């Protein structure tokens, strides 16, 4: 598939000023070369452009996650680092060296696949030793490093087993050992947890993160699971339709989504459209389409009449007597009791439904009950007409 793109011309394009998004080289200092750097890359499959003008610098030793729905281009970007996909424009550097023309087998990349991709005809030892063998490491050294790697993934003594004799979780551990044993410059993880069952997934999540910290390897992780992304990453890159929507720490992307897409994709935020009716410094009163008015703190002074969306996380909402401000009267449409907390869907008029996830205080409100829902004016984010965060 990628052969067809091999000779694709490097179309000259104007360098976008500044180029890189914030976050990458920030505290690594200007002197240290980023572990991986993309400059304005495009990746096309025939006429379909999977990734468009993507730039990113990844600090050495960091754990970065490409998060997005399927088809957003995250896996394509990962594969382009490995050389499994050719880029149609721009450049990729690994450790400061351009790799556009470096064949896959010379890139020194550790890859972990969703499907484990262990060689079924080779035992665990030969699987893990594979990369070392092709780096001409002497045999006793190979044996030493393989057993060290197996200890690291907590499967010592499994050398003689065949992959088919291992469980899914064990296979993925072996795949991880195989990818890190030759100390690659970057570890690429392509949805490594998706094929595992829920319990295993949680365990592996912790495991991967621990091993990444211990080895200090730069890890690039691809997932569509926001929980995985939030719990494991130093930085999250949220992608949609081949472009970057936002980059930031898990807190940043969760608390201050840059776009409507990010707000919706990460944690299903409530998005309440409305019009600014009056402004008092950084405080703006917004009349919602649902009819009621709320006050929100805006980082920028807004102009009355501007169309905005108020974005509030379900966890930032309170109900009943504990509502601090922005009291909206509504009616419970559905209640999901979760033990310590409950998720309410509340109709605040004009068929606008608000989702609130709150600790239970007193008795649980039932369907059909009238209820107040509200949030702190500082506990929301405002998006402009185009769905971009007002900052």
């Amino acid at each position: 598939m990628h052969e067809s793109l091999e000779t694709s011309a490097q179309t000259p394009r104007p360098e976008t000023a500044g180029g890189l998004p914030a976050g990458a080289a920030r505290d690594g200092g200007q002197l240290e070369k980023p572990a991986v750097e993309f400059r304005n890359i495009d990746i096309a499959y025939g006429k379909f452009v999977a990734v468009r003008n993507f730039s990113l610098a990844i600090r050495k030793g960091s754990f970065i996650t490409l998060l997005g729905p399927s088809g957003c281009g995250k896996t394509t970007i990962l594969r382009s680092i490995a050389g499994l996909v050719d880029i149609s424009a721009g450049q990729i550097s690994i450790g400061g060296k351009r790799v556009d023309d470096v064949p896959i087998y010379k890139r020194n990349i550790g890859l972990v696949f969703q499907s484990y991709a262990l060689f079924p005809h080779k035992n665990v030892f030969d699987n893990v030793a594979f990369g070392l063998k092709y780096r001409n490491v002497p045999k006793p050294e190979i044996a030493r490093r393989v057993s060290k790697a197996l200890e690291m993934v907590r499967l010592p003594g499994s050398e003689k087993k065949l992959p088919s004799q291992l469980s899914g979780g064990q296979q993925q551990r072996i795949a991880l050992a195989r990818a890190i044993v030759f100390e690659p410059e970057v570890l690429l993880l392509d949805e490594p947890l998706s094929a595992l069952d829920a319990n295993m997934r949680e365990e592996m999540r912790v495991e991967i993160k621990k091993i990444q910290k211990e080895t200090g390897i730069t890890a690039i992780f691809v997932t569509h699971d926001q929980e995985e992304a939030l719990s494991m990453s130093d930085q999250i890159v949220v992608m949609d339709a081949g472009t970057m929507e936002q980059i930031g720490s898990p807190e940043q992307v969760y608390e201050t989504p840059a776009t409507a897409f990010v707000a919706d994709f990460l944690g299903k935020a409530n998005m309440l459209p409305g019009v600014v009716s009056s402004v008092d410094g950084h405080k703006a009163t917004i009349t919602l389409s649902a009819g009621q008015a709320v006050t929100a703190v805006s980082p920028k002074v807004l102009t009355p009449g501007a169309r905005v969306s108020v974005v509030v996380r379900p966890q930032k909402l309170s109900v009943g007597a504990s509502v601090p401000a922005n009291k909206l009267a509504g009616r419970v449409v559905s209640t999901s009791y979760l033990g310590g907390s409950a998720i309410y869907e509340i109709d605040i008029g004009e068929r606008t439904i608000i989702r609130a996830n709150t600790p239970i205080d007193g008795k649980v409100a039932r369907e059909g009950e009238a209820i107040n829902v509200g949030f702190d004016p500082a506990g929301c984010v405002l998006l402009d007409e185009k769905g971009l965060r007002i900052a």
Partner: protein
Amino acid sequence: MGMTKGWKLYDPRLAWMLVAPVLLLLLLFLLLPIAVMGVYTFFTFVTAGVETSALTFANWKEFLTDSYYHGFLLKTVRVGAMTAIICAVLGYFPAYFIWATTFRHKWLLLLLLIVPFWISFTIRTFSWIHILGEQGIINVTLLKLGLIDQPLQMLYTEGAVIMGLLHFLLPYMILNVYVSLESIDRTLISAARSMGCTSAQAFREVTLPLSLPGLGAGLLLCFVLAAGSYVTPQLLGSGRDALFGNLIYDTIMGQLNWPMGATLSIVLFVVLGCFAAAYTRYMGMSQIVKGLGG
């Protein structure tokens, strides 16, 4: 409904009932004729077309002591093995190509493999006479070009027989190899390459070993079909190039010696059966079934 009372889904009785027609067919049309042949091997040959049911070991004794038969058997195994091996070498490349190509209409390439089956096998075999014969296209061309002044003897040789068998058997080999290649998870190759393999090394480490079952199935199938063939050597070989199948044909149709013919048939059946059994033991029959599109 009332009749199915007491029946469970996956009831063993139901399973037997469903298999019964096939078992009956196999019994009637396969096992029974072979058993009859087996009995015939002990009949006494009187003269052409005449035998008596007086039981005797004479036929088996003749087969076991006469090296004439052993020579034919060895030769048949040799030709079958050679054909199968050449098929494997020649067949792997097209199979690999069809598997690896990015050409969008792969089915067309697979269809091309099936197309020869639309023409009668006998006619396809006859066509070689016009290619290899004294007045065949090769000899005529070489004579016209003045490269030779006498036609080459290509037809009615063992080479011609093997050529004809290759023509007949290659699609079986290619399909078998192709199916086992198709079952390889391609991320394995990406994994190997990311760990430092060139494409050639990845082929040696991953693709080749994982396609061996298909290659093995193809080898067995080609060997059995080649060793059991009789039309091809009949049409393209001389008397010396006859295979065991021709010997059986000649014994039964020429000498009208049914007891001896039955003995030779059982011998070929047992020999090829042993190869198939050994293969099943070590590689599993499922590969062949897969290769046949099952």
